[in-house]
C-alpha cells in the first residue's frame, strides 16, 4: 500500500526526531543506579524498596486497582483540558491582540491571572463548583489558558499591519482573514505557549486528583502513600515519569510537523 503524503511527513518527522535524540549509552548512569539499588536493597522496604519490587507492585496495581482505568481518566482530563485551553486561549488571544486598545486595557489583568500559580485554582474551584469532573476539567483548562492566550495576543500584535491592509483590500471575510493571515502568523508563538502549558496542565491534573480523590493516577499515588505501600509509590512515580516523557516527545513530533507546514516568517 502506498503511504499518503501526510503519513510520510509524520514518519519523516519521527525519524528526524529519533536521529536527534542523544545517544542511548547516555542512559548508562540511570541503568547503573537502578542496578546498584537492586543489588544493595532488593527486597521490600518502607523507604527504598528495590526496583524489582516496583515491578511486582505495578502488576498488583494492574490487577487490583484498575490501573488502566485510572490512567485513562488522567489522560482524558489532561487532553480535554489542554484542547479546550488551546481553543479558548487562541480565540481570546486573537480577540485581545487584534485591538491595540483592548490589549493595553486587559494586559495587567491577564498578567496578574498568569502570575497566580495554577495549583491555587484547585481549592478555589472546589469552593465555587464543588467536587466533580466538571471542576477537574475547569482547573486544568485554567492552568493552561493564560500562557497560550498571552502568547497568541502578543503574536497577533506583531503581525505586519501591511498584511492586514492587504486582507482588507482583497475584501477577505473575517473567517478568511483568520485562516489565511492571522493563524499562520501566530503558529510559532502558539506552539511556545502550548509548550509552557503542557507541564502545568499535567501538574494540575495530578494535583486535583490528589486533593479531591477523583479517580485517576494522582488519587492512586496519594492512597498508596497513605497506606505506606512504598513499592506502589515508586511504581507510580515511574509510570508518571513515562507519561511525562511520552507527552513531551509526542508534542515535539507534532511541533516539528506543524513548523514545517507553517514555517515562522521573518
Amino acid at each position, binding site marked *: 500500500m502506498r503511504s499518503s503524503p501526510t503519513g510520510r511527513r509524520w514518519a519523516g518527522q519521527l525519524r528526524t526526531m529519533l536521529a536527534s535524540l542523544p545517544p542511548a549509552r547516555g542512559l*548508562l548512569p540511570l541503568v547503573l543506579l537502578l542496578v546498584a539499588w537492586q543489588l544493595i536493597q532488593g527486597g521490600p522496604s518502607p523507604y527504598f524498596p528495590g526496583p524489582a519490587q516496583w515491578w511486582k507492585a505495578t502488576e498488583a496495581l494492574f490487577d487490583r486497582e484498575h490501573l488502566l482505568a485510572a490512567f485513562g481518566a488522567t489522560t482524558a482530563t489532561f487532553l480535554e483540558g489542554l484542547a479546550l485551553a488551546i481553543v479558548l486561549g487562541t480565540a481570546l488571544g486573537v480577540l485581545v491582540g487584534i485591538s491595540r486598545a483592548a490589549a493595553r486595557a486587559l494586559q495587567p*489583568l491577564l498578567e*496578574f491571572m498568569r502570575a497566580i500559580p495554577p*495549583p*491555587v485554582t484547585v*481549592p478555589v474551584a472546589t469552593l465555587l463548583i464543588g467536587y466533580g469532573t466538571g471542576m477537574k476539567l475547569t482547573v486544568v483548562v485554567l492552568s493552561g489558558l493564560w500562557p497560550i492566550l498571552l502568547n497568541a495576543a502578543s503574536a497577533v500584535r506583531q503581525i505586519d499591519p501591511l498584511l492586514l491592509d492587504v486582507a482588507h483590500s482583497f475584501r477577505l471575510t473575517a473567517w478568511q482573514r483568520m485562516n489565511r493571515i492571522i493563524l499562520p502568523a501566530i503558529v510559532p508563538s502558539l506552539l511556545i505557549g502550548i509548550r509552557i502549558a503542557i*507541564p502545568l496542565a499535567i501538574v494540575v491534573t495530578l*494535583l486535583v486528583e490528589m486533593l479531591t480523590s477523583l479517580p485517576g493516577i494522582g488519587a492512586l499515588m496519594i492512597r498508596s502513600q497513605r497506606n505506606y505501600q512504598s513499592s506502589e509509590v515508586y511504581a507510580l512515580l515511574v509510570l*508518571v515519569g513515562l507519561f*511525562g516523557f511520552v507527552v513531551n516527545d509526542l508534542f515535539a513530533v507534532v511541533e516539528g510537523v506543524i513548523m514545517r507546514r507553517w514555517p515562522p516568517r521573518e
Partner: protein
Amino acid sequence: MPERRRLLHRINWPGLSTIALAFLLWEMLLRAGFAQYQNLPAPSAIAGGLVEIAASGQLLTDTLHTLRSVLVGWGAALVAGIVLGLLLGVSRTLRRYCLASIEVLRPMPGIAFAPVALLLFGFSLQMELMVIILPALWPVLINTMGAVMGVHARLFEVGRTFRLSRGEILRKIMLPAALPGVLVGARLSLTLALVLAIVAEMVGNPAGLGYAVVREQQAMRPELVFAYVVAIGALGVILNEVLTGAVARLFPAASGRLREAA
C-alpha cells in the same frame, strides 16, 4: 521633573481602570443578587479578609514560610544546576554518557515526587524542599549547559593565548559568556519553585500559603481563600520583579535576554 512625567506616562492607566472596573462590576452584581454563587465573596469581603489575616499576623507567618522554602529550594537548585550544567557543557564525554538519562528524567512532572517525598520525610520542610529542588534543577542545568556549549571556541583560544590557567578561563571567560543563559534558567526555575512550594504545602507540609488556601477552603471561609490567592499572586509578581530588577542592576548586559524569555 521629566523623570516623573515619564513615569506617570508609563503607567498603564486603561489597564488599571479595567481592573478597577472589573472589581466594581463584580461587587455590584453580588450586591444586586444577580450572581448566585454561594461561595463567591465580593471584592470588599476579600479586602476585609486581607485586612483580617494581615492584622492577625497569620499572613506574615505563612508568607515567610513559603518565601523561605522557595528561596532555599531555588538556591540549592541554582548551585547544583550551575555546577552540573558547567560540567556537562564543558565535557563532551560526560554529555555523551549522561544526556539521555537527563532527557528521560526531565519531563517527569514535579508533583510526582510529592508522594515519594512524603514517604521519606513525612509532613516536614525536607519533604517540601525535595518537591521544590528536583524539578527546579532542570531549567538551570539545561540553560547553563546550552550557554556554555554556545560560548565561541575562539574565546577559549584567546584565553590560551593569554596563558590563562583553567580556573582563570572558567572565571574570566566561560562564566561571563554563559551568564545570560544561566540567568534565563534561574528565572524559569524561580517561577517553578513557587508553584512547587504551593503544591508541596497543599498535599504535604502543613504550613505556608499553599496550606493556608486549603485550610480556609475546608473551614468554608471563601473571603480568606481569595485573600490568600491574591497574596500568592502578589508574591509571584514581586519575586519576579525583584529578580529582573536585580539582574538589570547587577548585569545590565545580560538583562535583555531575560526580558525576552518571559
